[in-house]
């Protein structure tokens, strides 16, 4: 599903963010990517979602060579991906339902189909009773669930979660992980979760890829991580 072959990334300012990373993630896998700040986690995400082009090497997602994608094809490619951010990125003036629907509207999904999918996504994250609420009326955990619903509404093959629990307490973090596991289990969606939270990684053991200074330092399919 996701293949990185000898990927190097050097930014214009000279920073070597990735140094010869090679890894393969199969369809339906749930993978943690961990590592300290500046280890290259975010760069991997940016390479996968097509925001950045590798300096050297190949990034292939669902059979698409992402680095070679023409600019005009990037938006269509991104419809295969869902992204969840640490800061939720919800539109404050829109309700829960409208926030989720927005992601479908802007890719021009047919109205009836879009509304149905938005409702299903909200139900999956347990927000059916909050459809008309606005983000400021929700807790942090609930807001992140809206963001997850929005990310999966378009039924992506890959769900990228960039520190999704970074702003949440342990109880809310557990809720989020439970939802992500449910999505992974029920929809066979490949989940790539970047995190700092060692407790989560050790409590919910899944394949764990550890990065340091742009190098892949460990890839444990049994999961767990100790610095």
């Amino acid at each position, binding site marked *: 599903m996701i293949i990185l072959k000898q990927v190097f990334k050097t930014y214009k300012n000279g920073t070597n963010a990735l140094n010869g990373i090679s890894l393969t993630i199969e369809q339906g896998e749930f993978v943690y990517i961990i590592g300290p700040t500046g280890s290259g986690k975010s760069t991997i995400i940016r390479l996968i*979602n*097509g*925001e*950045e*082009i590798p300096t050297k090497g190949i990034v292939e997602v669902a059979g698409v060579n992402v680095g070679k994608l023409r*600019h*005009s094809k*990037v*938006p*269509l*490619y*991104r*419809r295969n*991906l*869902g*992204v969840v951010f640490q800061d939720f*990125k919800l*539109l404050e003036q829109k309700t829960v339902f409208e926030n989720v629907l*927005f*992601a479908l*509207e*802007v*890719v*021009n999904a047919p*109205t009836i189909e879009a509304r149905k999918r938005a409702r299903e996504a909200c139900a999956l994250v347990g927000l059916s009773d909050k459809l008309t609420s606005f983000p400021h009326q929700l807790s942090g955990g609930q807001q992140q669930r809206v963001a997850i619903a*929005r990310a999966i509404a*378009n039924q992506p093959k890959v769900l990228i979660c960039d520190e999704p629990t970074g702003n949440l307490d342990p109880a809310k973090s557990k809720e989020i992980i439970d939802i992500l596991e449910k999505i992974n289990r029920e929809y066979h969606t490949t989940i790539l979760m970047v995190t700092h939270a060692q407790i989560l990684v050790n409590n919910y053991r899944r394949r764990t890829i550890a990065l340091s200074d742009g190098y892949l330092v460990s890839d444990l399919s049994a999961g767990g991580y100790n610095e």
Partner: protein
Amino acid sequence: MRRLLRHIKEAFIGLFRHIAMTLSSISTITITLLFVGLFLLITLNVEQFTYAVEGSVNIHVKIDQRFEDDASVNTLGLRIRALNGVKTATFSSKDNELDAMIESFGENGSIFESYRGKDNPLRMAYLVEIADGADIETVAVSIRELEGVEAVAYGGVRVIELLSLLENTRQFVYILVAGLGIIAIFLIANTIKLSIASRGLEISIMRTVGATNGFIRTPFLFEGLLIGIFGSILPIALVSIGYIWMFDSMGGQFITPMFALVNPFPFIYYVSAAMLLIAMGVGLFGSGLSVGKHLRWKR
């Protein structure tokens, strides 16, 4: 269609989000277009005046009685035609001159009929047409110096002065329109820039979920277009109503019948359409500048 409606709806939301900037952009467009309208009215009417005047700017050259033999008349004709600035020189016999005189007196002209034939006291003449009305005085002086010329007469100097005044006015308005147009474009660009900035989160979400760049840009272009359209309503109404009123109250002419004003219909339709197109163009260009700069396609 649904997509188009969405873009228009978003554009309206954008307009109201920065109502003060929107209003200032619309006002600038309004003022600019008022001058554009004025410019168009002056230009097109001056063109019509010029056309009318050009046909009437000529020199009437009376031939001295002592030089009425064929050879002298022909020589004079050749000399006149050889002068710089002369377009044509047409011989007019005594009878032709009488005809012209009778015609100019209208119904009462027939009393001059008795002069026809041997008693015709009028002189033979050359009617000289000038290539450029501005040269009329120089050409007239040159002709007066030729042998066989009794007198030269020409009209239209005042007319030319008036035309040149109108021409200067037109150029002044032209510069004003260009200046105001640039201000309007930059104000619109600024309004759209604010709109883009205030929708930064929305734009980043759209990019993340795979909205195309065209989809992201279009509402902002519509916003500029709408500013142009709204800005054009008042000037189009004022110019149209004002011109019809002016045409009626001046009896369809400017000072003299020679300066017949262009009939308001369908003239004002064309002027209004031109104003609307210019407004839309300015709106689109202004928003295009901002969109091009702040929504440049990145991966």
